[in-house]
């Protein structure tokens, strides 16, 4: 298996609405342009979504992302009954079309950037998230990143569902290896990213006792109560230059 580099800021976009942070040594700025839960109803299945821009104070190309942790609010649960799984091997061999429909966990995309000589090259990419393990407590993801213009890039990543530190709850963690789309190009970075995870309105047919029944996959389920200040979420980007950006945010609660 060839290890390569990847742009995966999209996963971090899950966590917050507006983030602007840089550590002492870091020159990267993360601006979450949109984030939330849809629907935003306590106790209900939801889609978590977000979009972000990543910039650098030192130039047009931010440092490549090497690791992302994303944390949702405490009390978020996963109900993966009715889901399927897709192995990393299948995704590598066959692409997203090879994965069962009920293993889909989310979608995303964005715009990457890299240097080729003195020229800046921008490339749009997409993200397809699948469950590779849907057992409670062992949940894992496989992520298909692809771009087609100007250079074809197809990369499979893996992520692990983790428990975040208080006041956060479930989240996920993704190591992002370097990605070099051409041998002479710089490692690719992410300029923008967007992501939607979850399955609040996803239904599949299942055969139960010989009868075909429509089954609702719940996926991400919001906590039954929402703190007065909103649901805390966070993401932590580690960049190739060694800097780390920890961004925190609260998503307002839906009040009836």
């Amino acid at each position, binding site marked *: *298996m060839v290890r390569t580099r990847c742009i995966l800021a999209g996963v971090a976009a899950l966590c917050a609405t507006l983030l602007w942070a840089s550590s002492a040594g870091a020159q990267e700025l993360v601006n979450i342009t949109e984030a939330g839960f849809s629907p935003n109803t306590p106790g209900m299945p939801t889609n978590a979504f977000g979009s972000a821009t990543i910039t650098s104070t030192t130039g047009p190309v931010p440092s490549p992302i090497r690791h992302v942790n994303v944390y949702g609010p405490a009390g978020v649960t996963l109900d993966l009954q009715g889901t399927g799984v897709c192995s990393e091997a299948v995704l590598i*061999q066959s692409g*997203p079309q090879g994965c069962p429909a009920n293993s889909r966990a989310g*979608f995303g995309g964005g715009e990457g950037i890299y240097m080729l000589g003195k020229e800046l090259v921008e490339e749009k990419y997409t*993200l*397809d998230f699948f469950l590779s393990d849907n057992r409670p407590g062992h949940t894992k993801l496989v992520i298909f990143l692809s771009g087609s213009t100007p250079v074809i890039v197809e990369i*499979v990543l893996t992520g692990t569902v983790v428990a975040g530190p208080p006041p956060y709850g479930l989240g996920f963690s993704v*190591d992002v290896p370097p990605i070099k789309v051409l041998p002479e190009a710089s490692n690719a970075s992410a300029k923008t990213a967007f992501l939607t995870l979850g399955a609040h309105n*996803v239904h599949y047919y299942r055969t139960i006792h010989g009868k075909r029944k429509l089954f609702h996959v719940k996926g991400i389920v919001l906590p039954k109560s929402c703190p007065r200040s909103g649901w805390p979420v966070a993401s932590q980007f580690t960049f190739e230059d060694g800097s780390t950006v920890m961004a925190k945010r609260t998503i307002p609660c839906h009040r009836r």
Partner: protein
Amino acid sequence: MSGALRPPASLPSALLALLALAVFCAAVPGAAAAAPSAVIRPSFAPDSPGARTSFAFAYTLRDPEGEGEVPSPLRTMQVRLPAGLGIDLRGAAGCAPARLRSGGPAACPASSLLGRGHAQLEVHAGSQSIPEDAVVSAVRIPDRAGHPALAIFGRGDTPLQEQTISTATLLADKAPYGARLAVSIPPIPTLVLEPDASIISFSLTLGGVRPHAAGAFTVPRRCPPAGFPFAAEFGFADGSRTTATARVRCPGHA
């Protein structure tokens, strides 16, 4: 945690790299938004002149980029119907749009149901084009600005459970057409931050030969030598437009 470069399906990696380099080096021409192509398929059953009939109307839309691509979402449609086509909606009860929205066609009077059909939709999410089948019902709703109106209720269950209501108004048209159905199609949301769904194919059968069928459709009494003319104009979310025409052969013509 691993990052795996997916091997190309059939090309050797060196060839793929060359291809990628060639694509990269080539200038990308600025492409104007081309309209999807459309095909319409109207039909009468039975097709005897003057007979009460079931009128079926179907269309398919294809992205100009070809197979695997999703056309821009449809927003408007004008269906032009042949002169002489009899459309009598007086026997159909009206259903309040709010009632239709909250409870679907089942919440409406049975006599408001004008017809049924199905549609196939597609959404581009991530790197994938995902199909979704929907059941379609045409329901009589109160007149709009003095013109007969109907709602086209669509509901898809898997993978996304979504419903949408398009509204259609029946208007007079000029020869060789007799009437046109002006249809407004709302955006069909899928996932947050992902594109709206696009209709790929659609078919609807209105009326029927049963005496108690809501709405009465009758085949024109006179058939032009080239057949009954139909046309449709489609307007898409990206601003592009396309048209399609078709003729239904006269009864007895091979």
